[in-house]
């Protein structure tokens, strides 16, 4: 196989989302039959619960499709969460798998030593019907991670540092390697792999090591074959990053790739809203760090904080472990698991002229509400610290955070 080749592959699982109900292509032309109903999972995540009649009608159509095609692996409101995070915790992602999903952050699954790429809804219909899809072979950049995260730096900062240095790299892939990988748990790896969608890559794949093995074994997956690069593999280039030198980072408004700075360089910018959540950063570790920073403190009266856990089980664990009560006592809103404001769907849209800092995945102009809003992106620790300060600050400036 050479870069530029197109390969056709069989998929192990297809994930269909509620948002497909907003696509007239599907609603007007639903599939008459599917390749294997047991390999199709339906997860409601983008607009949960329905924020308006249009979304309610769309999701009702998907429920109808679920019945018509006997798609029994179905997660309606209250039973799943944001698909990428829910699939990981459910043991759907493990080495060697190929999964098709209607969402651009499907690259998240690369943390599990496997392949998944986002597809549009009409194309996902093709995969539902045929069980096959195609990938374009691209060149690969090797990202060599060394060292360990230190201080208040998080996996998001590792990604933002990479994004600033590398810029966009459409049609290419990333392969993660190096001793530093072993120092990252699966939550941290999925933050990085998920965010690689912002670099415009096709795939971002981590090795199949012991950390991954114990994660998937705990979720009932015993048999699989990890994939590893050929000894003769050639790369388009290499990038080295010592994670112990990574400081808290932020993306400036409107784009991520090639648009990041150390948080210290932009501190003092007043924020009207702070958001913690998304498939990347709505994990239990995000709730934990937010609770640690907010404990005994209050959200600054000049701003507001919205926290959205990624899945129902993270939501529940966050309550059991006391993170959510701590966050609520600090004066934040904790919502049910959903994509919510990450894509401007509901629950916390931005008004004209507002400035926000978010640990979600995208800061495009207009994405989270008004087209006149400015969106900075950072780690959940930086967002929580900024919520306390009412302005962008580094988490290390809040005593006791670490």
């Amino acid at each position: 196989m050479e870069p530029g080749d197109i390969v056709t592959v069989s998929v192990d699982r297809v994930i269909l989302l509620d948002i497909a109900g907003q696509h007239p292509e599907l609603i007007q032309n639903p599939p008459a039959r599917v390749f294997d109903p047991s390999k199709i999972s339906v997860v409601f995540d983008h607009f949960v619960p329905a924020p308006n009649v249009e979304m309610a009608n769309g999701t009702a159509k998907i429920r109808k499709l679920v019945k018509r095609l006997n798609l029994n692996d179905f997660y309606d409101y209250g039973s799943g969460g944001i698909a990428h995070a829910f699939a990981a915790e459910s043991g759907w992602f493990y080495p060697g798998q190929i999964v098709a999903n209607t969402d651009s952050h499907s690259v998240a699954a690369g943390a599990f030593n496997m392949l998944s790429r986002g597809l549009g809804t009409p194309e996902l219909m093709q995969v539902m019907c045929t069980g096959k899809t195609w990938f374009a072979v691209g060149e690969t950049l090797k990202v060599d991670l060394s060292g360990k995260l230190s201080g208040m730096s998080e996996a998001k900062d590792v990604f933002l540092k990479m994004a600033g240095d590398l810029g966009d790299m459409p049609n290419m892939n990333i392969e993660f390697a190096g001793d530093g990988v072993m120092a990252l748990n699966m939550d941290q790896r999925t933050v990085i792999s998920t965010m690689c969608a912002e670099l415009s890559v096709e795939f971002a794949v981590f090795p199949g090591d012991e950390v991954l093995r114990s994660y998937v074994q705990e979720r009932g997956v015993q048999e699989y074959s990890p994939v590893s690069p050929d000894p003769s593999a050639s790369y388009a280039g290499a990038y080295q990053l010592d994670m112990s030198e990574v400081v808290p980072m932020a993306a400036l408004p409107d784009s991520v790739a090639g648009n990041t700075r150390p948080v210290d360089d932009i501190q003092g910018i007043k924020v009207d809203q702070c958001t913690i959540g998304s498939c990347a950063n709505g994990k239990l570790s995000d709730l934990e760090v937010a609770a640690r920073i907010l404990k005994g403190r209050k959200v600054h009266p000049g701003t507001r904080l919205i926290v959205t856990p990624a899945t129902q089980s993270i939501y529940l664990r966050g309550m059991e472990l006391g993170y959510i009560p701590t966050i609520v006592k600090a004066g934040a809103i904790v919502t049910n698991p959903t994509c919510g404001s990450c894509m401007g769907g509901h629950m916390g849209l931005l008004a004209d002229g507002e400035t926000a800092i978010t640990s979600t995945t995208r800061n495009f102009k207009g994405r989270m509400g008004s087209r006149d809003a400015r969106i900075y992106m950072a780690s959940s620790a930086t967002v929580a610290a900024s919520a306390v300060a009412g302005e962008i600050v580094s988490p290390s400036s809040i005593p006791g955070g670490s």
Partner: protein
Amino acid sequence: MDDKISGRVWGFGDDINTDLMYPHICYTLPEIDRPKYTMWANRPGWASQVNRGDIIVAGRNFGVGSSRPAAANLVGLGIVLVMAETVNGLFMRNAVNSGLPVLRMDGITQWIAEGDIIQVDFQNCTVTREQDGSVREFNRIPDLLMNIVRSGGIIEVLRSQGYIDSEPL
């Protein structure tokens, strides 16, 4: 789709993302009204100036972002071709699946500007700039993709293969 097309160019810069082409408000609008919001945040009023048969020429990383049907909005406005320095892989597939061809060409933004008229020959893989007759070649779009474009998009492919239920949801 014809093997030769000719159209007037709209110029765009780098990093034109899917959320600009398909703002979140589109999700709640009837299909026919969605294209009116294309580039609503970065170039208000543009959508109403587009004529059927127009072409977009853009810079790097065109279409970065989500799987939303951004290309369908361009098709809805009458755009018949996108050319860019580099193109996001997901946008490329979504475009092809909506029947919209996309060409990558290094240096296109230095050569073609807004207002130019260009002719594209998909058989011979050439682009001609009408003003001065200059010609450049592009790499042939793989047959797998070109066949989808020629069929009018992936739904039409599925329909011809008998996969589409005649009863809407």
